[in-house]
């Protein structure tokens, strides 16, 4: 932060610090030092008065000492040579009769982050470990960790480690906890501090002496301990029972995690624990601190994943109140839609319906999507509510409702009729890309049951020049072609116009290529179009894609009470994913793209052959697998190959599906375009009967795609051939997009 005139300020401070009159007047001297600290906090570089500050450290005024040491710890890395001058004073203070001064000096000396300080601090630390004042011992124990981290490459000192292990039996509870922390850091390359049976039981016995922070941390360390027998396990759980009822949420959550981990083989104990922490969790959810409330809600969502009905009787606690910040409301809406059951569904839906008309468009849309999620179980009620919302004719509401309808029709085909009746008229109130795409898709796929579908699409075709989103244009092309198959008379003319526009006038290459592709496809005859466009669709009953499956408690317990649940899923994936190393995919050159897309379209059995035939490797065209079979096989197999490669543009399901069909890779399931995270599942079978199951996971933020392949027979050669075929096809599509 550049502060104007900061140089003058520093000069003035320097002058004041040197002034003997000020030095003699203790309050004034201290005041000047305080000003230095204040400037330091604000980001002004005051390191140039280091010398004067070192002088100021030789004083009996302990407040002044503290301020000067704070200053030194901040600037020592910048002025290591000057900081060495202060070591003398610090060393002298380390043998001061006042334990407070000793502690302060030792702590500050260990916090000087500069090379070469190690030799000076070693002896004071060792003395500190045996000091009779617990305050100094606390400081010295952490000093060991600081000293070790300054020289992380140095050997671990065995005697020091032993000394720390013996200090675990210290009288002072804070020394005990600090020992654990220090050992954890020193031994981090060997897996951290070892918790064996005597240590574990010693810690358990000391629990009542510790304050809430100590308890929470010790509970975390105990996670490492594996009880030898069932009796011991339950003895430990009994000892810790009171921690579950602590008034500090941090202790309760740490205890919960410990219980869940220790009882990982006893699901009924886990359920029982989760029932018992319901009370404290709900208290935290309605806590006065918004942030705590948010953290608790995130953890409630984790629990609900395993025990969907867990909080159902407390659904009212998750109603939003007016004054809550946005991020809490959104979490609560998510929680609400996960805890509906037959008894409360009406109340929850009434509540959610109220949010749908909220002034905040985000909350309104979240509520609509939540109703959409509930609709998978309680279809009729929800579709009715959603239909009623259309009457309001608000842009953001209509758009969200239509998107919800699209997903719903796909998952629950039985509601198709109701949706089709509600659709007419929506087109007037949709402006955004997502909503338009959803509407166009619905009109294309279910156009035969919506009387005015061709006319609505015609409006879109008329205005295609003014359309700003390429994705909408692509959706329009596909939808119109589909509708053309079922209602040719009404669509032929405008399909022609649209194709003409896309091929001749469109600037966006992806749209133009799509238009060309369909045009050439049409040239091959209507039967071929039908075969490609109406090939078996991805199956909605596939649980993998939806990610809704109930998960066992053990699948998330390691993330419980960490920062992970606090991030949204997509956000955490972005944080934790490893960086892309080198793009592995084939570099699509301009010529390659053209020839590849050409061969894709002017397809013929003979021409197709070379594309999928690499050496002796051949994929069978009739390797049909049902969704259930696929899911079963997928879950039973290990991943044989994993890879990350870059990916640009929007993954369009239809293109991928069509392209892979050409090389006899069958699409089992695909997410809709633009859904995050976007997933796809494919299967294929080679001549020897080996099955290849593939998962694609697209991460739009990093523009990369994660590929995992599973194989029913372990054959490395076939696997490589399969991957190269798959990547050639995908590379081609990526090429088209980029």
């Amino acid at each position, binding site marked *: 932060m550049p502060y104007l005139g900061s140089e003058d300020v520093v000069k003035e401070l320097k002058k004041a610090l040197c002034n003997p009159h000020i030095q003699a007047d203790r309050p004034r001297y201290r005041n000047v030092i305080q000003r230095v600290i204040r400037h330091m906090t604000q980001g002004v570089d005051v390191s140039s008065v280091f010398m004067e500050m070192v002088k100021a450290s030789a004083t009996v005024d302990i407040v002044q000492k503290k301020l000067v040491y704070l200053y030194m710890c901040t600037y020592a890395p910048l002025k290591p040579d000057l900081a060495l001058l202060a070591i003398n004073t610090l060393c002298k203070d380390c043998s001061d009769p006042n334990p407070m001064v000793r502690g302060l000096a030792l702590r500050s000396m260990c916090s000087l982050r500069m090379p070469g300080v190690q030799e000076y601090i070693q002896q004071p630390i060792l003395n500190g470990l045996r000091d009779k004042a617990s305050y100094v011992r606390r400081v010295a124990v952490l000093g060991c960790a600081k000293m070790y981290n300054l020289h992380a490459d140095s050997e671990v000192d065995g005697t020091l480690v032993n000394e720390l292990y013996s200090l675990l039996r210290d009288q002072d509870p804070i020394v005990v906890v600090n020992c654990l922390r220090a050992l954890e850091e020193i031994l981090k390359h060997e897996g951290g501090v070892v918790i064996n049976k005597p240590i574990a039981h010693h810690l358990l016995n000391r629990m009542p002496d510790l304050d809430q922070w100590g308890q929470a941390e010790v509970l975390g360390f105990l996670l490492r301990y594996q009880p030898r027998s069932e009796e011991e396990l339950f003895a430990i759980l009994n000892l810790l029972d009171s921690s579950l009822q602590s008034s500090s949420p941090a202790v309760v959550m740490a205890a919960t995690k410990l219980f869940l981990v220790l009882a990982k083989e006893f699901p009924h104990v886990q359920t029982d624990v989760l029932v018992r922490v319901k009370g404290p969790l709900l208290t935290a959810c309605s806590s006065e601190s918004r942030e705590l409330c948010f*953290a608790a809600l995130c953890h409630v969502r984790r629990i609900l994943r395993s025990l969907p009905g867990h909080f159902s009787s407390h659904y009212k*606690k998750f109603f939003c109140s007016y*004054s809550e910040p946005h991020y809490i409301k959104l979490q609560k809406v998510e929680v609400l839609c996960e805890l509906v059951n037959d008894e409360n569904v009406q109340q929850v839906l009434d509540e959610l319906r109220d949010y749908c008309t909220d002034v905040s468009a985000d909350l309104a849309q979240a509520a609509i999507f939540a109703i959409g999620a509930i609709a998978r179980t309680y279809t009729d009620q929800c579709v009715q509510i959603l239909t009623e919302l259309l009457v309001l004719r608000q842009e953001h509401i209509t758009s969200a409702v239509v998107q919800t309808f699209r997903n719903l029709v796909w998952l629950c085909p039985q509601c198709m009729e109701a949706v089709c009746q509600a659709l007419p008229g929506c087109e007037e109130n949709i402006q955004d890309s997502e909503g338009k795409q959803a509407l166009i898709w619905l009109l294309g796929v279910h156009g035969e049951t919506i009387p005015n579908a061709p006319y609505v699409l015609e409006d879109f075709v008329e205005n295609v020049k003014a359309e700003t989103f390429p994705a909408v244009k692509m959706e329009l092309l596909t939808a119109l072609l589909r509708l053309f198959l079922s209602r040719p008379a009404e669509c032929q003319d405008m399909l022609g116009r649209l194709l003409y526009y896309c091929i001749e006038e469109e600037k966006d290459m992806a749209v133009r290529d799509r238009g060309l592709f369909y045009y050439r496809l049409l040239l091959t005859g209507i039967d071929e179009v039908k075969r490609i466009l109406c090939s078996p669709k991805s199956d909605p009953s596939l649980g993998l894609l939806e990610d809704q499956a109930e998960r066992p408690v053990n699948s998330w317990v390691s993330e419980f009470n960490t920062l992970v649940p606090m991030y949204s899923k997509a956000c955490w994936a972005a944080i934790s994913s490893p960086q892309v190393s080198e793009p592995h995919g084939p570099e699509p050159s301009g010529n390659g793209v053209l020839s590849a897309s050409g061969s894709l379209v002017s397809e013929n059995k003979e021409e197709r052959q070379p594309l999928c035939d690499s050496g002796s490797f051949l994929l069978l065209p009739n390797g049909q697998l049902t969704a259930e079979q696929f899911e079963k096989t997928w879950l039973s197999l290990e991943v044989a190959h994993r890879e990350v490669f870059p990916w640009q543009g929007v993954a369009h399901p239809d293109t991928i599906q069509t392209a892979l069909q050409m090389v006899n890779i069958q699409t089992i399931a695909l997410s809709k375009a633009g859904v995050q995270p976007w997933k796809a599942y494919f299967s294929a079978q080679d001549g020897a009967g080996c099955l290849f199951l593939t998962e694609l996971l697209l991460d739009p933020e990093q523009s990369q795609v994660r590929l995992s392949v599973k194989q029913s027979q372990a054959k490395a050669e076939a696997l490589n051939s399969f991957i190269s075929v798959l990547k050639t096809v995908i590379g081609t599509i990526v090429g088209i997009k980029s």
Partner: protein
Amino acid sequence: MISQLFILSSKGDPLIYKDFRGDCGGSDVAEIFYRKVTELPGDQPPVVMHHKGYHFVHIRHFSLYLVVTTSGGVSPFILLELLSRLATLLSDYCGSISEKTLSLNVALVYELLDEVLDYGYIQTTSTEMLRNFIQTEAVVSKPFNLFELSSVGLFGAETQQSKVAPSSAASRPVLTGRSDQSHKNDVFLDVIERLSVLIGSNGSLLKVDVQGEIRLKSFLPSCSEMRIGLTEEFCVGKSELRGYGPGVRVDEVSFHGSVRLDEFESHRILRLQPSQGELTIMRYQLSDDLPSPLPFRLFPSVQWDHGSGRLQVYLKLRCDLPPKSQALHVKLHLPLPRGVASLSQDLSSPEQKAELGEGVLQWDLPRVQGGSQLCGLFQMDVPGLPDPPSPAPPLGLGPASLSFELPRYTCSGLQVRFLRLTAPGTPGNTSPHTWVRHLSHSDTYVIRI
């Protein structure tokens, strides 16, 4: 473990910055944090944020940001609890926590941080233990004056009728100690209940939630034993019943670790040895069944003339408190449809005030007596509606929310019967003054329209 801790003003200026481990970037993290937090899109949860391998966790305390950075592997609950404990500690030591008091007390705050955290590990946060190490005295921005009666608070003291403690009496530093001996021995015991209520548009009660706590702020230097007697009919859970009356029932209670409960079962007495500073002795909550009627009922009626675009809202507010009690600072907040322009009002008494804020109607009632009924008629024009205007009222009207304070009243009926100190404070001093206050206030009180 914690890497850095900093406190930012609402404008993003660093007031306090301390780097414990030197492993999470330089001192520009405060700037990065502020930029991230202000540039957030609306739907992202801002409590935790990620930047280049480390995480920001923060709370907002009034207008300040209290932030820690960590490289992970630590429980969010510990961090959040620590930050709010830190906020309490700072206001214990500095009197109150604001941009001004923090910058006046930089040395004191750093001293505190030094003792609370070492190398990013929490050492202790107990006021009692920290007291031994803190040498700086707090600088108070305004000298405290016990007899400044112009600022008499909303609640007087019940135990000592002759004296009235101003509301600011409790918001002074705990440790001013050395200079003014005279005010050393005050003990404040507050029973505070937060009420969150949701009433449906048909008048049915959708949700009632009372979050209560008993908070103690002690200025007594020595630890004498304190006995707090609660209402004898107090019972916990649905099954338990005590006494013959309706009883004072709560769903759940949790106590602070230092409270001894040996006399709780028999006589509803809490015993503890309080240290100086603030302490939440007991928290409780109660939902759905309130022993007394709700403090307020609102009867709205809305007329929408879609021909002329005129919206007429008639609000009738009934206060169902006992006639002797009253509600203070009652504010009704009614969001209005977008673009509402003129407001004409007709209120039932002159001390009320209504005005049009940004898209909201604000109706202020400084004082509402129990059992009374107040009403207001508001007429507004809603211009710029789409053609033709729909017969349904435009979006964005309601729900109404109320905020208020109910002095000397608890919704659950819980009262402190007595507060006794067994061993008097410092010898030679007058006996300590004890102030017991009861207060309910609205957390959210929402009435759908």
